[in-house]
């Protein structure tokens, strides 16, 4: 709302009141944004140029932390690789599987309520509980999954205990919790105008033709939305990878103890875990902050993508 160029004093007072009112309504967020986002971001930048171990005073070291993180730290490569692997494979499979379950659910006629609830429930399981459960289910020696596979004559893999199976096991765990995507896709699928299907049928389109020329074009924005938010979520992937690695390694120690994350062979080490490990286990605060900013840069790049209208996150009227 543009203010007139020379308003009468009463009008100006009204505008001032209006502005103060808006500020008042926004104040919880304004405070929160500055204190819990703005300040720590600036401080992270500051510490990334310091040698700091949380005991001694910070000492300026220039770009040394950055050089260490990007070129010398042996675990940076594996952590980045694992994170990118998860981003590509997990997001792709989640979207495909979520869409498949969404389609299935719109086709089910009997017991629809039961199936929808069944598919949705795992999404609600707390990540730690779900991970503990999956480490148990996929336990190579006594887990039910390998018992059943064995009974069927298929030798089960070592799952979380095999470096080449650990990440696929995490993917399986995340496919189990697909409920949110299912609901989003289901709503999008039911929004497709029915007349378009009838028109396509008249034109002689089969099941695939209807999907390709009617369903797909109208759900593309939602698929894009799912991909981009999935990428952002997966870049933060932390709890499941950490807990699975710790439990599968069988190390009988409580939280807070120093163990190398990413069991087995760093195959489940992600960038967020590396930040935690640098900052809170090795007390190399400067390097942890530099690594945080690397993650921040990647996250911002993806977020910028999200801001584009096509991703459908911002309403058109904005």
């Amino acid at each position, binding site marked *: 709302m543009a203010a007139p160029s020379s308003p009468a004093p009463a009008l100006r007072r009204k505008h001032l009141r209006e502005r103060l009112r808006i500020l008042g*309504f926004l104040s919880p967020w304004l405070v929160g944004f500055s204190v819990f*986002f703005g300040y720590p971001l600036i401080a992270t930048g500051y*510490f990334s140029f310091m040698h700091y171990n949380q005991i001694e005073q910070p000492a300026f070291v220039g770009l040394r932390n950055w050089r260490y993180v990007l070129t010398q730290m042996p675990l940076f490569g594996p952590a980045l690789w694992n994170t990118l692997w998860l981003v590509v494979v997990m997001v792709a499979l989640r979207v495909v599987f979520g869409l498949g379950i969404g389609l299935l659910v719109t086709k*089910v006629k009997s017991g629809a309520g039961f*199936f929808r609830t069944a598919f949705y429930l795992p999404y609600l399981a707390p990540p*730690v509980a779900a991970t503990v459960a999956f480490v148990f289910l996929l336990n190579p020696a006594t887990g039910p999954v390998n*018992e059943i596979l064995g009974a069927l004559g298929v030798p089960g893999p070592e799952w979380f205990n095999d470096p080449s199976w650990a990440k696929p096991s995490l993917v399986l765990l995340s496919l189990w919790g697909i409920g949110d995507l299912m609901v989003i896709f289901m709503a999008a699928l039911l929004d497709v105008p029915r007349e378009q299907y009838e028109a396509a049928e008249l034109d002689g389109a089969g099941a695939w033709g209807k999907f390709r020329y009617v369903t797909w074009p109208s759900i593309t924005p939602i698929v894009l939305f799912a991909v981009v938010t999935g990428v952002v979520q997966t870049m*933060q992937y932390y709890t499941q990878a950490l807990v699975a690695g710790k439990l599968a390694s069988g190390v009988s120690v409580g939280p807070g103890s120093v163990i190398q994350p990413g069991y087995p062979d760093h195959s489940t080490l992600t960038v967020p875990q590396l930040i935690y490990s640098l900052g809170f286990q090795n007390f190399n605060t400067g390097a942890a902050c530099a690594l945080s900013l690397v993650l921040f840069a990647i996250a911002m790049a993806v977020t910028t993508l999200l801001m584009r209208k096509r991703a459908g996150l911002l309403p058109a009227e904005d």
Partner: protein
Amino acid sequence: MTTTTFPRRPARARTPGTAGTPAARARRTRLLHWIAVHAVAVAAALFFLLPFVFVFLTSVMTDDQAMSGELWPHEWNWSNYTAVFTTPGFLGWWRNSLLYAGLGTLFTVCSAIPVAYALARFRFRGRRTAMLLVISTMMLPPQVVVIPMYLVWAQQLHLTGSIWPLVVPMAFGDAYSIFLLRQFLLTIPPEYVESAKVDGCGELRTLLRIVVPMARPGIAAIALFQFFYCWNDYFGPQIYTAQNPAAWTLSYGLESFKSAHSVNWNLTMAATMLVMAPVIVVFFFAQKAFVEGVTLTGVKG
């Protein structure tokens, strides 16, 4: 926005027909289609539900049997649940989780309502920027800003080892809740707000008397999401409460429970059931608000 629990497609009218006619053939195709769809659905349901079943069955096994890999319990050993509850610390973690989730939800709802209202209803310069900033914080990995925040809580405020560093920030507007509620508020016709103002309602009165009651489903959705977020949170408690086991939450304590009882899968699975139970119970009571919320985040943009 959906009005029923789950969006439903209208039922198709049934066409009567006699055997041998094209109508009967069409009906046979439909039947085969019905069978195929439901077979796939049953298979999928097994994938989603069997983990719960196995976790539950193991949670009532005896120590010996839980190690054996057998699937069905010989005897139903309910005492595992008592054993979990009497494990030192477990009740305290339960209380901390409730406190974190309860206060966190209350604070989030109270702070998100005015902010979401301002972003949805007021026209002002910088509104778009504010929205972009809200969304950016929503997308930001929590690990990026945690180190300086930890240092403030640990070195200046000396409050680490308690749940306060987890709860206090919630009083200052959670980006996700603000975004979700704002999207919901946009669906309320502005005429209601206008007519309240014409009737002489102040802005705050309008918000409390008109908007909040109308936005009840949206508020319920953000409250539920925040409750689940806090209940499920692992990273926050790990950062701020690790040094003091008395301040751990259930999510965080569960992992240590397994570590301390390395071999006792039955006890661990009983504990896992107890961590999962509250969210599932809450879901069955609040299904509608929950599913609406999920739909709203994804579809109504």
